[in-house]
Structure formats: structure tokens, C-alpha cells
């Protein structure tokens, strides 16, 4: 089977029903995607399939053939996705174990809803458990990242109009 992870193609020799989670972790040694429950309850394994957030523990590898898989390792090239920066700024993680999944759910949210309100954040993030209790910080970091993204967009638009200083 061939799958595309973070832009690179990989050949994997595994059973078709093997969840993507274990293909990523055990076969490709991409351990950023975490195993928390194996049953779709915790969100620790959240990745993107063609930009949509899915639980890797419930997604058979065969389902991902021909689709673009993005994991936390591929969220940005230099670790500077607005969410990653906001996470550092707000000192979000405690143990850190749930955070890959949190980031991937949050990234999908901002993709669809660039400026989410509190309710929309709750809705998008409610499938991601954090036993350490970082919810309040996740919330503020998502809002901060949304602002960062918006500011960057304005800057880009201004630059296009030849007004780079704006």
C-alpha cells in the first residue's frame, strides 16, 4: 500500500484494516500522533485527511490511500503555525501527551472558522480530552492564533497592494 504523509509518499506492508494510528506510530515511527484510547473517545490521535480532522485510531489505513495525511509533525515546516506559536506563548501543555491531537483539532477549526467564538471552540474541541486540565489555556491560545492569522492576512493583502509597511 502507498500512503502520503506530510507530503511524502510511503510504501507500507500492513494489513488493510490496520488503523492509521499504528501505521504512523509503529511503521513510520511518526510518534507525534498519540495513542490515548483506541476508541475515538479522546482525540489524542487526531490527524487530517485531506484537511479534515479524523481519529487515526478509527481510520483503517486502506481508507487513507490516495488522500493527503497530515500529522502534527507536518502541521508546519518550521514549527511556526500560529497555533504552535500561541501554544508556546500561552504555555499551554502540561504533560503534553494530548497536545498533538488538540493542535490538529484546533488547526482544522481555524481552517473552517477563521474567527471562532467560545461556543464554536467548545464544539470543535470537545472530542479532545486533556487529563492534565489545560482547557482554559487551549481556548485562549486558539483565540490568539486566530488573531495572529487574521493579522498576517491583512499584512499579506497590504503587501500585495504594494503597501508593505501597513
Amino acid at each position, binding site marked *: 500500500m502507498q500512503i502520503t504523509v506530510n507530503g511524502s509518499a510511503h510504501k507500507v506492508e*500492513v*494489513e488493510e484494516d*490496520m*488503523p492509521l494510528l*499504528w501505521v504512523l*506510530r*509503529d*511503521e513510520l*515511527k*511518526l*510518534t*507525534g*500522533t*498519540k*495513542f*490515548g*484510547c*483506541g*476508541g475515538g*473517545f*479522546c482525540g*489524542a490521535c487526531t490527524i487530517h485527511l485531506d484537511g479534515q480532522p479524523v481519529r487515526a485510531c478509527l481510520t483503517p489505513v486502506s481508507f487513507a490511500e490516495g488522500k493527503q495525511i497530515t*500529522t*502534527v*509533525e507536518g*502541521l508546519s515546516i518550521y*514549527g511556526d503555525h500560529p*497555533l*504552535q506559536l500561541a*501554544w*508556546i506563548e500561552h*504555555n*499551554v*501543555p*502540561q*504533560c*503534553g*501527551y*494530548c*497536545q*498533538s491531537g488538540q*493542535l490538529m483539532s484546533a488547526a482544522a477549526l481555524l481552517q473552517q472558522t477563521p474567527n471562532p467564538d467560545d461556543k464554536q*471552540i*467548545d*464544539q470543535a*474541541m*470537545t*472530542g*479532545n*480530552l*486533556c*487529563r*492534565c*486540565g*489545560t*482547557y*482554559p*489555556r*487551549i*481556548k485562549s491560545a486558539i483565540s490568539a492564533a486566530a488573531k495572529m492569522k487574521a493579522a498576517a492576512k491583512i499584512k499579506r493583502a497590504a503587501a500585495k497592494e504594494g503597501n508593505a509597511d501597513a
Partner: protein
Amino acid sequence: MPDTTVKNIHRRQFLKLTGLSAGGLVLGANLPGWQPAWAAGLEKNSELNLFVSIDSDDTVSVVCHRSEMGQGIRTGLSQIVADELEADWQKVNVVQGLGDKRYGDQNTDGSRSVRRFYDTMRRMGASARTMLERAAAQRWEVPAGECRAENHFIVHTPSGRRLSFGELAEAAAGQPVPEEKDLRLKDSGQFKYIGKPVNTVDTPDMVVGRAQFGQDVAVDDMLIASIERAPVLGGKIIKLDDSAARKVKGVVAVEQLDGGAEPPLFKPLSGVAVLAYNTWTAQKGRKLLDITWSETGHSQHDSDAYLKELKQAVQEPGKTIINHGDVDTALAGASRSHSATYTVPYLAHAAMEPLAATAQVSEGACEVWACVQDPQSVQQNVASALGLKPEQVKVNVTLLGGAFGRKSKPDFVVEAALLARKIQRPVKVVWSREDDMRHDYYHAASAAHFQAGFNGDGKVESWLQRTAFPSISGTFQAGVDRPSNSELRLGLADMPFAIPNRRTETQRADYHTRIGWLRSVSNIQNAFGVCSFADELAYSVGRRPDEFLLELIGSDRHINPSQGDYKYDNYGEDLKKFPVDTARLKQVLRRVAAKADLNMRGDHEKNAGEGWGIAVHRSFLSYVGIASKVQVRDGQLKILEMHCAADVGLVVNPDRVRSQMEGAMIFGMSLALMGEIKMQNGAVVNSNFHDYPLLRMHQCPPLSVELIASEEPPAGVGEPGVPPVAPSITNAIFAASGQRISELPINKHLKIG
């Protein structure tokens, strides 16, 4: 320095301590970029002491010998060393220490990393700084007194000459170790990092998915094991049919683990391990095992029936442990009295990372990589299982994806070591969520009964507290049949009320499952009982809870809860250094009371079903108050806001202390609202997060944390936020609705919004 002495140990020893001399997984030194926390390269460093080494390129490596599980200890301890060392924080590299008794205690529980090692770490930093200063003085041939450290340089004050730490590293390492009396420690006014919200050192790795946990370890040639374990304590394998499992493509071996001895200690349970090339295949094979388990003395255990028994037991006179005055006479003569019984069910740790351990065994040696809170206990337990000496077991501590007490029990590491020896190949044991839920060392189910009598002036004159729960001691010793004295110290013996007649009793509670310590331990049920009952008393005489509590606590004083044979151990600390100080408790009480509208009660309709509750509790030498505001409407509960005031003594990293308090509030809400492990026929019924739910984001109210500025010695942080949370919520529910919830979890009585 009780735990560790500053020794100028030889380079080879330093390398050994930090895991760099042997092969295995250890990465070479100076790889560009990133390395796992437990395998940083230090070969070319000059070591100044057990905790500090310096590279000629100026990098200062600080060993963190305590486990990181989200409390920020790798940052906190390093901040302390770096401050006294006068290092530049940007050039500090944190290295995870191996298990080794030379570090002193490494058991990362009991909320004691900072309190036990604050002084040690300061001395380590100061000692290394002194050696750098002396090396510079020698180089310049000037008196050492003229040389001062300043942000990663030693400066010759009269001439302004400077040498960097890196330039001096080798010469400094050759200096004799300074005498303790010659160490100059900073005044608190000079602190650069201590007391500052320094960002967590592991966060940048975490946000790009590079941080390595126990589950993430990979060793060449390893197999993954998934283990089916005896569902009931003491169970042994009677019959096994593994033929179907062996047929699964990719399954390499099926091995039995003999267990089931009692007391359970930290030994593996009986189990059958399916070993395969990857986790999925191992789990798939395991599902096909057909095992018949033996019946045991616990096969009838039913948690609901058990809680009923405990509840019944605490209505009857028990064994008196502490007695002041004459409770019975005072109760008989009371002008008014009140009684109540509270229960808390079994609870699971449910850290986000299920247990995982990797082991490799060779002749006379074993190396493990695991998410463990106590690497020295791993050394001992693995050594005794394999017939080795503890020094022959090398323990690499990964990051811990949460722990809360579970990962200080190394049963899972012993499993990996035994399997690795059996199949002569490295093995990673991967626990599933279901394994984690069903084979925990549970927080004890408990019942507690309280009785109090008032005199004619409305003052509480007598207080009886009687508790029953299976003791943690039963994990280590046969025949334990009631709470131990050490568990009473966590919130009952040190109950801070100035009541002349008071008695503490225990009742019988048999042991049926592995009991362990969970974040804040017996303080959970003890504070739930004491803080709920005090609230009930306040309402019974029509008083506002804060005013009533202030009166109950009484004058500013230091309490010594020891009495006769009963010795209060004060979390292992001297009562002089860490007194039970009612003034500090009252202070956090006033702070949280100020957040709450405690007049809002009585007319539930008018208040729209909203109400406030407060609770305050001292544990782990810290004082924490919680105020909760809830809404109860149509049988549905919503927590609207929650506030914390904490006095934890001197704060090393205010941001991490805040985050621990936030986390404690959320942990406390999970257990109060929905925490319950059920057992039937001796086996745990819950299996995953659908039937052992945790608080989710939409259920989390806005939280606030107020840290009380304090110059008192640093006290516990990780645990003391938890105990007052549950009673603050149930007290608020009473204020909001008139419904008193005395049996946790709350979702048995109200829907959770």
C-alpha cells in the same frame, strides 16, 4: 543537605548517571538538533557536580533527577540551579537523570520535588558558580573575592576582565568542591529566574510532536507485547488456548506471566502476553486468546454492595485513634446536634498516556525506557524479578504523559523485563486504555460518618469523625483491614477546627483490589467529608459558611495533631519549618469568600437556581481555597465559574503553579462530577472514556487562580489543589438548590450540563 552531597564525581560517573556511556538507544553527543530528554549528549562536558556540567561551547547542562509528568519540574529545578549559578537561561540544557540513588530521593510523588530539593538545587548552582569563580581567579592570579559571576561570565570586578563559563569549564571542574560554609547564596531580591514564569523547556518539542513519552520508545529489533491480565485480584491461569492467537500473521510469540501473589506489591498480575512486530497485530492476537482464570477470594467483590457495607460500618462505633475531651458526654448534653455520612467511590488515575515500558535484558544487565515516577523503585523491582542487583538495572526515564500516582508503581516495567528475558529480545509492553482502566491501583472507595453537637450559644462543642476505606497498606502487607494512621494524617488528624471534644475513629474495610495513591490521596475523601459537614453545620444554625468556618478554625495558632501514640508526620517535614498554621488557612478562606456571594441562598427561585460554595483545605503543607458557582435547573447541573486561592509558600515558577491549580480544579471536577470505578464479580466494569468519563472542554467553566505572595519555604503544588474542589461544588449545589449531595459522583444525582 539531607538527600545529596555535592561531590566532585569523576567524569565517568557523570556519564553513567546520565546514561551516555553505554550503547542501546543513547544517541551520540552533539548531534545537531534535537535529542530525547533522556539521552542528551554530555561527553565533552566538564562536570562540576552531580547536577551541573558545562560544555566548552558554553552550554550548561542541568540534570533533572525527578520525573516530568506535566508539573514542569524539568523547568522548575533547572531554574533554581541556573539562578544560583548565574547562568544565561538561553544556554541551559536540561538532561533527564537515570535512576540512581546518588541523586537522593527520585520518587516523584507527594508534591515534594521543589520542597525537598529547593535548597539542594540552590547549593548545586552556588557550588558550581564558586568553582568557576575560583578557576577564573587562578587564571588571572587574583583573589577569588574579586571575581563574580554575571550572566554566564565570570567578571574580575576591579579590571572588568571577563571569561565565559565555557572557557572556564575545564579548569572549574578541576577545582576542589567548595565547603558548604563557603557557599554564597543569593538574597531573594537578586533572583533572576526563581519566582519568574519561565516558559516550560519541553513545550517547543511538544507542539511539533517531537516530545518522547514511554509509548513512543523504539529500540532496534523490539517486539510489542499486549497482555491479557487476570480480571480479579489474585487470579491465576487455569487453562489457556492460544492457538488462534498464534495463527495471526505477525504474531511472534505467546508467553505467560505468573502472578497473582498477595499482597500484590508492585508485581505483575498473572497474564498472557501476545508478542508481535507491531501494536495492532499484538492487540489483534490477544483478542483471540481463550483463558480460564481461577476463582479467588475477591471473585464476589461488588463495589456497590461494598460501599453500602462501608456506609453501614461507619454508623457503628469503631476503633478510636485520636481523642480529645469527651465527645460522648458533650454530644449527650448538646442543645442541638447534626450528623451525616459521605461516600466516595473507587477512582482511576486515567492519565492520558496508557502505561508503556521497553526493556532489554542481557547477561547480568537490564536496560529499560519507561514513563516512571520512581526510577529507583524500578531498579529494585526489576532487579528482584530478574535476580539482578539494582545497580545492574539502567532506567531511562522518558516524559510521562500524565501519571497522578499510577506511574510510581512499576508493575508494568517488570512485565517488560520478564518478557524481554524470556524471549531474549527487546520488548515494549503497550497497555491499552482498557488495560489502564482495569488494572489500576485504585483510589480507595470510602465512607465517613460525622457527628457534631452545639452548645446553647450555637458553638460546636463536639465533633466525631469515623472513616472506613481499604488501606494502601494492604497493597504491601497481608491482613490490613482498616485505614492506616498515615492515611488519617491526610486531612482528618490535622482537621484544623478549635473544638474542645473531638474523636477520630476508623472502621473495618477489607481489601479486594489493588489500592494506590491518586493525586492528593486520602485528602480527597477526608476533605470531602470535613468540608461538606462543616457547611452542613453552618446551614443548620443559619450561618454564612465563611463566617462559620472562620469561627470553627478559631484563633491564629500552630496546631500539633500528634497525640499520645498517634504521631502526625506532617508529610515528612518538620512542624517548625512547615507548621499547621490556621492563620494561613483563614487567609485563603477570606480570599475565596471574597469571590463568592455567600448570601445568595434560601430563595432558589429568586436566585434562578444559582449558588456559591466554598471549601478550604491544607494538604502537602499548602493551603488552598476553592469557590464554585453553580446553577441547578430541572435536575441539571452547570458549573458557572470556579476560583482558587493558594498559599504554597515561596513560588519558583508562578506560571507552572497556576497551571497546576487549573489542572487540579479540572481533575477535581472530573472526580466530583463523574468519577466512579465499578467492580462486579471482582472485576472492573469500566473500560474506556465512555464509561469512565473525564471533564471535557465545554463542561469547563472559567477558572481563576490567586497565588498568595509568601516567603515561607516552598510547599506542595501538584496535589493540594484537588481536595477542596469536590466539596466546594456540592456546597454550591446545596446553596443553589437545597439538595445535599453526600455520595459522589454528582452525576448519580444530577445531569451534568
